[in-house]
C-alpha cells in the first residue's frame, strides 16, 4: 500500500461514526487535562485506558492519541487568559499571550494561534503520513546496536536539556534505570530486586511511576494551598484582522519546521521546541522590542511548534517502536493491550490502526479547532474550582485509574510510594524527566544492549564499529557537550517549565 492509498484508507477508518465519537471524547478530555495544571496528557490517557479495553483497536488508539494532541490546545487557553500555563510547553505562550489578553486582544490571540496550530498540525500529519512508511521500511534494517544508540541519544538529550545540576540529572537517570530493572530480567526472566513480591515480577507499572512522580506528587506538595488563578482576561473580539493573519504566516511556517524537527528526536522536550521558536521569532522580527509586550508572533510561532512537535513525536513510535515521552509510553502500552506492536512492521500488520490513527490526527485537529471557541468559557469556569479541591479529585480519580488497569491494590500502594518519592526528589531539586524517560526506555535499552552484545560475540566495539550506531552515539556525545557548554548562556527551557505537569520528558 502506498502512502497516499494508506492515508485514504486511514480516512475511511477515522471517519467511521464510532471513531469520530472516540476522537471527540479524546479531544474533550485532552483539552480538559491541558487546561488543568497538575494533570497532564499522561494522567488523562491513563484515566481512559480502562475504557479502551472495551473498544476496537483503532477506536481505542484514536481516542488516546486525541487526548495526547488535544492537551496542547487546552494549555494554550489558560496561558493566554490567565498567565497560568497548564503544560510546560505552554509557558512560552504566556510570555506574549497574556500581555495580548491584557490589551483586550485575548480573542485574537486564541483564534490566531488555533488557526496557526491547525495549519501546522495538518502539514505535520501530511509529512508524517508520507515519511512514516519509507522510514519504517528503512528501520527494518536497523539492528539492536542502532536501537540502543538511538535510545542513548534520547537519554543524553534529556539530561543535557534540564537546566539543573548535571550531577542531579545523571543521578535521576541512574535512578530511573534502576527502577526499570526491578522485575524479571528481559532476556532470561530471572527476578531482580523484587523482595519476594510476586506483583513486582512483571516490573513496576508504568502508570504508578508517571502518575506518582508527576500528578499526585504535585497535589501532595501543594497540599493546603488554596491559591488559584484569579485574573481572567475578557474575550472581546475573536476574529483576527488581515494584519494579524499576515503577521502570522511566517511564524506558522517556522514553527511547523522547528517543532517537527525537534519532535523527531526521542527524549526531546516540547518546551525546547516552543522556546527555540520564540527565540527565532524574536531574532527575525523587525520589532524585537515588542516581544514580551503582546507580539502575536510570540504566541503563534511557539503554539504551532508545539503541535508539530507532538505529531512528529509519533514518527519514532510508529517507525521504530521507541516512545519518546512518558505519554507516548502509555500510548505504546495501549497498543500492546490491543495486540498491535508499533514499529517497522505495524504498517503491514495493522494497517487499519496505523493509517486510521494518522488520518484521525487531521480529523481530531478539525474537531479541536471547531470546539475551541464555544468551550473556552466552560474551561474558564472549571478553573474556578479551588485548586485544593481539584487536587483531592485528582488523587481520587488517579487511584481508580491505576487500580482498574490491573485490578491490583498493590499498584495503588506503589502509586503512593512513587508519589512520595516524587515529592522528595522535587523538594531536593532533582530533575524528574531523566528518571521517567530512563524508566520508560530502561527495558528496551537493556534488551537491545544485550542482544547487540550477543550479535557482536560479546565485543562491546559492536556499538562503534557499525556506522549508523557510531554516528548516533557521536551525535549524543557532541549534543551533551554543546548543550552543557551553553550553561552560562540564556537557558533553553525556562525554569518554570521544568518538573511542571506530567509531560515534560519527550
Amino acid at each position, binding site marked *: 500500500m502506498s502512502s497516499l492509498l494508506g492515508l485514504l484508507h486511514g480516512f475511511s477508518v477515522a471517519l467511521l461514526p464510532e471513531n469520530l465519537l472516540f476522537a471527540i471524547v479524546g479531544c474533550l478530555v485532552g483539552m480538559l487535562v491541558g487546561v488543568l495544571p497538575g494533570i497532564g496528557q499522561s494522567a488523562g490517557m491513563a484515566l481512559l485506558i480502562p475504557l479502551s479495553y472495551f473498544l476496537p483497536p483503532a477506536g481505542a488508539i484514536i481516542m488516546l492519541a486525541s487526548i495526547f494532541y488535544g492537551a496542547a490546545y487546552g494549555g494554550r487557553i489558560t496561558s493566554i487568559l490567565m*498567565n497560568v500555563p497548564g503544560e510546560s510547553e505552554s509557558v512560552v505562550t504566556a510570555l506574549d499571550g497574556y500581555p495580548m489578553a491584557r490589551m483586550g486582544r485575548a480573542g485574537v490571540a486564541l483564534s490566531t494561534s488555533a488557526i496557526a496550530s491547525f495549519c501546522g498540525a495538518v502539514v505535520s500529519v501530511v509529512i508524517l503520513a508520507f515519511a512514516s512508511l519509507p522510514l519504517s521500511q528503512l528501520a527494518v534494517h536497523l539492528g539492536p546496536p542502532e536501537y540502543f544508540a538511538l535510545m542513548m541519544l534520547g537519554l543524553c538529550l534529556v539530561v543535557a536539556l534540564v537546566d539543573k545540576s548535571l550531577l542531579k540529572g545523571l543521578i535521576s537517570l541512574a535512578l530511573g534505570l534502576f527502577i526499570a530493572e526491578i522485575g524479571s530480567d528481559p532476556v532470561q526472566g530471572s527476578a531482580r530486586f523484587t523482595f519476594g513480591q510476586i506483583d513486582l515480577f512483571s516490573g513496576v507499572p508504568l502508570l504508578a511511576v508517571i502518575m506518582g512522580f508527576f500528578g499526585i506528587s504535585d497535589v501532595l506538595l501543594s497540599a493546603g494551598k488554596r491559591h488559584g488563578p484569579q485574573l481572567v482576561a475578557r474575550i472581546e473580539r475573536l476574529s483576527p484582522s488581515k494584519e494579524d493573519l499576515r503577521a502570522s504566516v511566517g511564524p506558522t511556517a517556522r514553527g511547523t519546521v522547528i517543532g517537527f524537527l525537534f519532535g523527531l528526536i526521542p527524549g526531546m522536550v516540547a518546551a525546547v521546541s516552543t522556546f527555540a521558536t520564540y527565540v527565532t521569532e524574536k531574532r527575525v522580527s523587525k520589532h524585537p522590542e515588542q516581544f*514580551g509586550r503582546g507580539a502575536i508572533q510570540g504566541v503563534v510561532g511557539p503554539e504551532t511548534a508545539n503541535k508539530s512537535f507532538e505529531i512528529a513525536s509519533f514518527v519514532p513510535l510508529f517507525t521504530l517502536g521507541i516512545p519518546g515521552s512518558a505519554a507516548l509510553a502509555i500510548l505504546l502500552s495501549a497498543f500492546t493491550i490491543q495486540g498491535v506492536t508499533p514499529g517497522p512492521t505495524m504498517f503491514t500488520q495493522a494497517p487499519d490502526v496505523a493509517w486510521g490513527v494518522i488520518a484521525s490526527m487531521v480529523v481530531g485537529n478539525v474537531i479541536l479547532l471547531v470546539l475551541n471557541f464555544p468551550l473556552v468559557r466552560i474551561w474558564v469556569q472549571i478553573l474556578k474550582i479551588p485548586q*485544593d479541591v481539584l487536587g483531592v479529585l485528582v488523587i481520587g480519580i488517579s487511584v481508580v485509574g491505576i487500580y482498574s488497569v490491573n485490578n491490583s*491494590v498493590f499498584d495503588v500502594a506503589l502509586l503512593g510510594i512513587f508519589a512520595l518519592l516524587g515529592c522528595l526528589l522535587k523538594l531536593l531539586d532533582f530533575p524528574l524527566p531523566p528518571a521517567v524517560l530512563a524508566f520508560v526506555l530502561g527495558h528496551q535499552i537493556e534488551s537491545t544492549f*544485550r542482544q547487540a552484545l550477543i550479535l557482536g560475540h*560479546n565485543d562491546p566495539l559492536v556499538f562503534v564499529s557499525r556506522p549508523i550506531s557510531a554516528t548516533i552515539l557521536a551525535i549524543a556525545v557532541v549534543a551533551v557537550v554543546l548543550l552543557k557548554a551553553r550553561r552560562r548562556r540564556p537557558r533553553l527551557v525556562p525554569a518554570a517549565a521544568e518538573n511542571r505537569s506530567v509531560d515534560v520528558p519527550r
Partner: protein
Amino acid sequence: MTSSIEEPRPRFGERRISAVVDLVTMALIAALGLWVVVTSVGLGLQTSLGIGPGMFPLASGAALLLLGLIGVVSRAIRLRGALAAQPDPAVESEPDAAVITEEEPPPSEAETFTTVKWGRLAIAAALVFAFVLVMGYLGFVISLSLFMLAMMLLVARRSWWVSLIVAVATAAAIYFGFGVFLGVVLPGPTAPFLSWMNP
C-alpha cells in the same frame, strides 16, 4: 522580558540547611548504589550466552554509587564554605527581598524544603497509605469516600458539608462510571458487618 525567572536569594540559615540536606541525600544515594552493586553481583554477571541479569543493574548501581560519592565530596566542600561564611547582613535584614521585575513573571510553583507545608504533606501521605491499608477491609468505594472526606477536611480544610458532598459525589461517580458502566471489578469489603454489600 527575560527568559529566566529571578528568584529571591536564599537566607543564610536556609543555605546551611539546604547544604546539610543535600549532603545527607548524596550519602543516601551512594548507599543505595552500594546496595544495588552488591545485590547485582549476586544475580550473576555472566552466562554462557553473554552478560548475565546482574550486569545492567551493576552498571546503574555503580553509577549511583559514583555519582553519590562525587555529590558527597562536593556538598561537603560547599557545607564547609557555608559554615565558614558569615551571614550577609543585607540579605538577613530584608528576608523577603525579592527581585521585582517589570512584568510579573508566571507564578513559580516549585516548592522547597522551607515553603512546603510539612504538616499537611505528612497528613496527605499518611491518608494515602491508610487508604491502601483499609481498602481490602472496607472495600474500594467506602474507603475511597472516607479517604476523600478526610483529605477534604484535614488537608483542604473545607467545611463538613462541602467535604461530604465532594466525597460522596466522587465515590458515586466512580462507582457508577467505573464499576457499573465500564465493568471494572472494584474490590468489595471483607469486613463481616459490610458483607451485605457484596453481591
